[in-house]
Each structure stands twice: as C-alpha cells, then as structure tokens.
C-alpha cells in the first residue's frame, strides 16, 4: 500500500513539474493597462547622474504620446550586450537599445539589428556629424542612429606655462613643439621629477591614437586594406619610446600608480603640465581642480598640416532584430536623436551629442569655461577619427594590441611588431 502511495505521489510530482515547465513563458505584457503599446528601451545608464537625465527624456516623450509608452530598462554595462544577444536569438528582444558605435557593421552582418533604411532619408542623415553617420552604414543601409560621442583634447596648465616662460595662450601645435614645451615644463629635484611636462600614454589616450594622428588620420584598416605597418605608425611608436626613455621607467610607473582616484589625478594635482583627455574630463577639473588655471587645444599634429587627429568613440541607438514594434521604436529613436532631447542630454551630462544642431543649441546655454571647453570639443569632432571594426577583421584589436604592447615594452622593435601584427591579422581575415 505504501509503495502504491509513493508511486502516485511520484506521478503527481512529475505532472506538476511538467505543468510548471510548460506554463507558457508569457512575454512581458506589450500593452499598458490603458492600451498603449509598450516600447522597451534598454540602456546601461543607471548612474546617479545619467539615470535621471535619460528618464526625464523618456517621460517627456511619454507625455506627448497617447498610443505608445516607453519603458526604461536598466542593465549593467557588459551584461546588456550578452543579454541582448540572447534575447535576439530567442526572438524576444528589446525594442530599442543603446549600443557601441564602432561595432554596428558587425551586428548588421550577423543580423542582430533591424535595417532602419526605410525610415531614414537624406535630410535625416544630415542632422548628424558625418564621421558618426558613417559608422551606422553597412552595405549601403543604415542600421542605427548615432546618439553620443567623444573626442580628445590637450589640456594644459597655464600657470605652469608662465613659470616655464611659455606663452599661456600658445599651446603646442605640433609634436616637435609638444616635446620642446614638455622639456621646459619638467621640474626635477635631483633625479626625481616633481612635475612632468607631458607623457603621451597618460590620460585618455593610447598608442593607437598617436599612430593614427601621425598617419594623417589614417586608421589601421581603411576600405578593407590593412594599413598597420606604415612608416608613420612605426615613427609614432618610436616617438613614444623616446619619451619613455627620457623620463625613465620608474618615473612613468610612479606617476601612473597615482592615477586611481579623481582627486589624485596628476593633472589636477598639477604634477603633469599637459594632459590628453576626453572633453568630459573638464567636469572633473571643474569639481576637483578649482585652482587649476588651464587651457584646451586640439591634439598637436604630427607635423604642420598633417591634422590634429584625435580618437573618438560613442554610442548609437538601434532596434534589435525581431523587435515587435519597430515603427513605434523608430519614432522614439527619432525623438531621442532630435534637437530637444539631444540638447538636454548634452547640457546635463556635459557630453558630446551626435545631432549637430543640438550641439550648437547646447553651446548657447553654456557659459564661461563650460562653454570654452565644450566649443573646443565640438570643433574637434571634425578631426576626430572613429575606429569602426570591419566585419572582415572582427577581432583585429585583440591581435594588434599585444604587438604594440611588446614594442612599447621593448621586446621587439616597432618595425617588427607592426609587421608581425599585420601578418597575424591578415591571416585571420574572414571572407
């Protein structure tokens, strides 16, 4: 009898379990109670500063709509991409998502995003900075709309310039000047540096930026051709090595170790006189370095006339493949990337936006040093180079960087490093 009971219990458990499993995984309600279509918008903007700004933009949009309701879903940086990928594969993605600007082509190629071309005409395209719009086009179609971007400037300490007998209104314009000024700005106490004039790898800049700057803005892969091992790029690496040798490994490391916290930033602490960073670095200066008398300038050109090329990044908004309400989603994207929302975002976040008119409108609202720096960043966008990842070489970064590392660590010569890098990358070309 007992066994029979156990048996029956087991059967019931099994049925219960199966019922539990098969219970339709109900897609989240795609309508609100009052019958509005829900557009699910995924971002990684969850910080204290950013969240209220994006949610205000969403609220404004929602109150102007009677058929659509945009729901903001925050996902942490990193998780958002894998979750997006899984949800696209499962056929149940978000309606709108913020994603990396440099990898749009890859997502288009792998059919992770919807083609937006049907909603986009030339007059819409012209609203955006052309170098940003280029990144969202793939095979003649548009797969995303640029949202925000950044660029890099040279911040310099005017007080230090005066001390060193340099004209504080004349920042260095070429690499040669940069070097000359830097040497004058160094302050040494015996063998120790109390102040370093400049070091090319500090701040928000890497060897690849200098290599592109040297090569008149030419990236590592241009129109499908590998342009890694070029004389100018080799020269740039040698130039960086010269700095390292002059300052000494110990000085570089000792300074680098202090870069952790914002208060201890060496430019703000006036221990480094010139510093390359993104435009938003200004907000740190404003908040923690009230006493620093600084100026901004474009990154010096390799030689006169070769261009003040800086590296840029940013984010786009796009519709994941298979989203349920592409039309409503696109309407929201248009709002997000239009003047009003973009202006609000740029002023509140002190961020560069993709919409040209919005950037100008933001300028009118700013004043004082806020305006000075912002204006410089907007101007700088014309000489900002994006690094979109070509679909033929999806992981070229991870193959190139170790070779650059090795050259900078003195393990190989720059010539050899770039030659090997180009060979490695060529081998992995995807058809």
């Amino acid at each position, binding site marked *: 009898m007992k066994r029979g009971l156990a048996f029956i219990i087991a*059967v019931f*458990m099994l049925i219960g379990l199966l019922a539990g*499993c098969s219970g339709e995984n109900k897609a989240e309600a795609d309508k609100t109670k009052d019958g509005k279509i829900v557009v699910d918008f995924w971002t990684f903007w969850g910080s204290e500063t950013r969240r209220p700004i994006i949610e205000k933009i969403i609220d404004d949009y929602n109150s102007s709509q009677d058929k659509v309701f945009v729901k903001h879903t925050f996902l942490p940086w990193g998780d958002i991409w894998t979750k997006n990928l899984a949800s696209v594969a499962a*056929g149940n993605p978000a309606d709108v998502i913020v994603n990396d600007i440099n990898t749009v082509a890859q997502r288009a190629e792998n059919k*992770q995003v919807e083609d937006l071309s049907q909603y986009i005409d030339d007059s819409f395209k012209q609203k955006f900075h052309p170098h940003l719009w280029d990144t969202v086009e793939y095979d003649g179609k548009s797969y995303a709309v640029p949202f925000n971007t950044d660029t890099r400037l040279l911040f310099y300490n005017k007080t230090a310039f005066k001390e060193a007998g340099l004209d504080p209104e004349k920042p260095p314009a070429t690499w040669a000047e940069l070097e000359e000024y830097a040497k004058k700005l160094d302050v040494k106490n015996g063998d120790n540096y109390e102040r370093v004039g400049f070091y090319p790898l500090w701040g928000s800049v890497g060897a690849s930026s200098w290599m592109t700057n040297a090569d008149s803005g030419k990236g590592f892969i241009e129109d499908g051709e590998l342009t890694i091992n070029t004389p100018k790029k080799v020269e740039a690496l040698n130039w960086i090595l010269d700095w390292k040798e002059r300052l000494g490994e110990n000085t570089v490391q000792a300074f680098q170790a202090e870069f952790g916290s914002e208060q201890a930033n060496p430019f703000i602490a006036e221990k480094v006189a010139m510093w390359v960073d993104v435009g938003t670095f200004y907000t740190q200066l404003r908040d923690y370095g009230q006493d620093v008398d600084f100026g901004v300038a474009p990154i010096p050109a390799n030689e006169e006339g070769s261009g003040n090329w800086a590296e840029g990044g940013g984010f786009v908004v796009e519709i994941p493949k298979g989203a349920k309400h592409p039309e409503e989603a696109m309407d929201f994207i248009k709002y997000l990337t239009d003047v009003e929302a973009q202006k609000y975002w740029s002023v509140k976040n002190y961020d560069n936006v993709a919409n040209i008119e919005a950037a100008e409108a933001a300028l009118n609202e700013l004043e004082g040093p806020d305006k000075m720096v912002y204006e410089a960043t907007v101007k700088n966008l014309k000489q900002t180079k994006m690094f979109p990842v070509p679909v033929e070489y999806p992981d070229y970064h*991870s193959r190139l960087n170790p070779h650059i590392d090795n050259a900078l660590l003195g393990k190989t010569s720059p010539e050899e490093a770039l030659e090997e890098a180009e060979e490695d990358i060529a081998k*992995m070309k995807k058809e």
Partner: protein
Amino acid sequence: MKSSDTTLAHTKGGSKVMQEQKAAETVGRTKGLSKKAKENLAGYLFISPWIIGFLGLTLGPLLFSLAASFTDYNITSKMNFIGLENYKRMFTMDDLFRTSLFNTIYYVIFSVPLTTAGAILLAVLLNQKIKGMKFFRTIYYLPAVLSGVAVYFLWMQLLSPSTGLVNTMLAWIGIDGPAWLFDPEWTKPALLLMKMWSVGGGMLLYLAIMQGVSAQMYEAADIEGASPWQKFYHITLPMISPIIFFDVITSTIGAFQIFQEAYVMTENGSGGPGNSLLFYNLHMWNNAFEVFDMGYASAMAWLLFIIVMILTTVNMKLGKRWVHYEGGDSK
C-alpha cells in the same frame, strides 16, 4: 537558423509529451508489473526532475555545442556546416589560440602543484596541538570564504607596483618589486601568488583527513624512533593520498577553466599586457560574445574538454600507483 533556446524548448516539449504518455501508460499497466519493476519505475519517477533538467539543460546544449563546432554558427543568423574548418583554423591560423593555450598550461603546471603543496603544508602546521589553534585555522581559512570579484580588486590594489602593499613590504627587505600585473613576465606569477593566498579551502580537506589518521601509527613510529619527516612521508602522506588525488584532479580541471581572474583583472577583459593573461576560456569568451563566432568558440570548448578528459584519465591511471585506500587493495 534555430536558436539554442528554441531548440531547447523543442527538446523539453518533446520529452514532456513522451513522459506524459509513458506516465499514462504506466498508470494503466501498474498491476501487471512485478514488484521490482514497480520499484525501479518509482525511483526513476522520483529522480525525473533531475533527469529532465539534465537532458534539457545540460546534455541538450552540450550536444548542440558539439554540432555547432562544425558550423559557422553566429548565434543570431547563420549555422552552416563547415566541417573541420574551425578546428583547422585553431591549429593553423589563430596565433591567439596558441598564446591562450600556452598561458593556460603554464598556469595549470604551476598552480596545481603549488596550491596542493601549500594546502598540505598549511594543514600539517595547523594539525599541531598548540593553544589557540582554532584561531589560526579560522584565519587561514578566511580567504577561502571571501571570493570572486571583490578579492580580485583587493589584489589589484595589493599588487599595485609602487603603492601596493606587496611591493612596499618587499622594499622593506630591500627588494625592488616587479610591476606585477603591468609586466607580462610577472602577470602569471601575480595570479599564482593570489591563488596561494586562498589555499584555505584545500587545507580544510587535508586537515579533516589528517585528524582521522590513527594516533596509534604515530605512536608506533615514535617507538621505532622515526623522525618527524619519516613520519610525515611514511604515515601522513599515504594516509591522506586519496584527498591529494581528489584535490589534484579537481584543481587541474579548475585551473584549466581559469577565466574570471583574467577577465576582471585586465583592462576591458582584454587579456593583459602583451596578452600574457589571455587564458583559453577568455579567448573562447571573446570569440563567442565579442566576435559572435560561436561555432569557433564551441570548437575551442570541445578541444578543452578533450584535453581535460585525457589528463584526468592519465591522472586516474597514475593514481592507482600512489593512492592508498585504507581497508584493502580493492582497485
């Protein structure tokens, strides 16, 4: 074009129908079954939640990834059969594959013996009868309780070249410490150092078995005039060898799977300076989720499985020679 999730749903749906039919049939036929068969059936029904979970959530995806390793599967849009192309690419074209395999094997070769020996040594020390031993045991076990990302961040601070505690202490004794996580020569030793810090988990296992070793043996050895080393080598080691065996096998498998450390402790999860921390699983992860080449990543996963399988088999075979099981020679 099928995504893994829909495939999963199919498998689940399929087994559901089958199971229900089976259940219905069995209910009808129970009378005709022998007692033993009924018992077996009930047993299987009881473990069926696990079996269904295993089939649907483990074996299914496992086989799917095996199939995917022969395709150019990219998660969202492609899945064409390309034969052994992925495997060929691994061995002939992908330099990072070689780097990652080298880094991983390097790590396994050093971390397994070091952590095993470290744990045994610690267990021996903590197996003494001294006052306050409980306190020490707790202290040494503590790092094993702390885990994950927080610990990695802690170590990144400790290993900071000029302000970190490790180099500061080395400086006290006149050693100019290396740049640890910034110098490709020292990144892996830095990780090994970090692993050594948390041998407390293994130590606990050894301590437990050491306390079970009969005191009579040591007394007998004392009477014969054995030295402490002889006692350790001829009594302790053989008696704890089953745990050593278990520890070596599990930590070898664990070491091959090293991922988090490199993902968290290198800039953007890139694999560190000069790719010196690009471990096998990190390269695999990058291929799957950065480049969307899930087919290739699946192939890498299966190759790793084969490597680990072979090593474990070798370990098992060798184990018979040195592992001592108390209570007979049954092998």
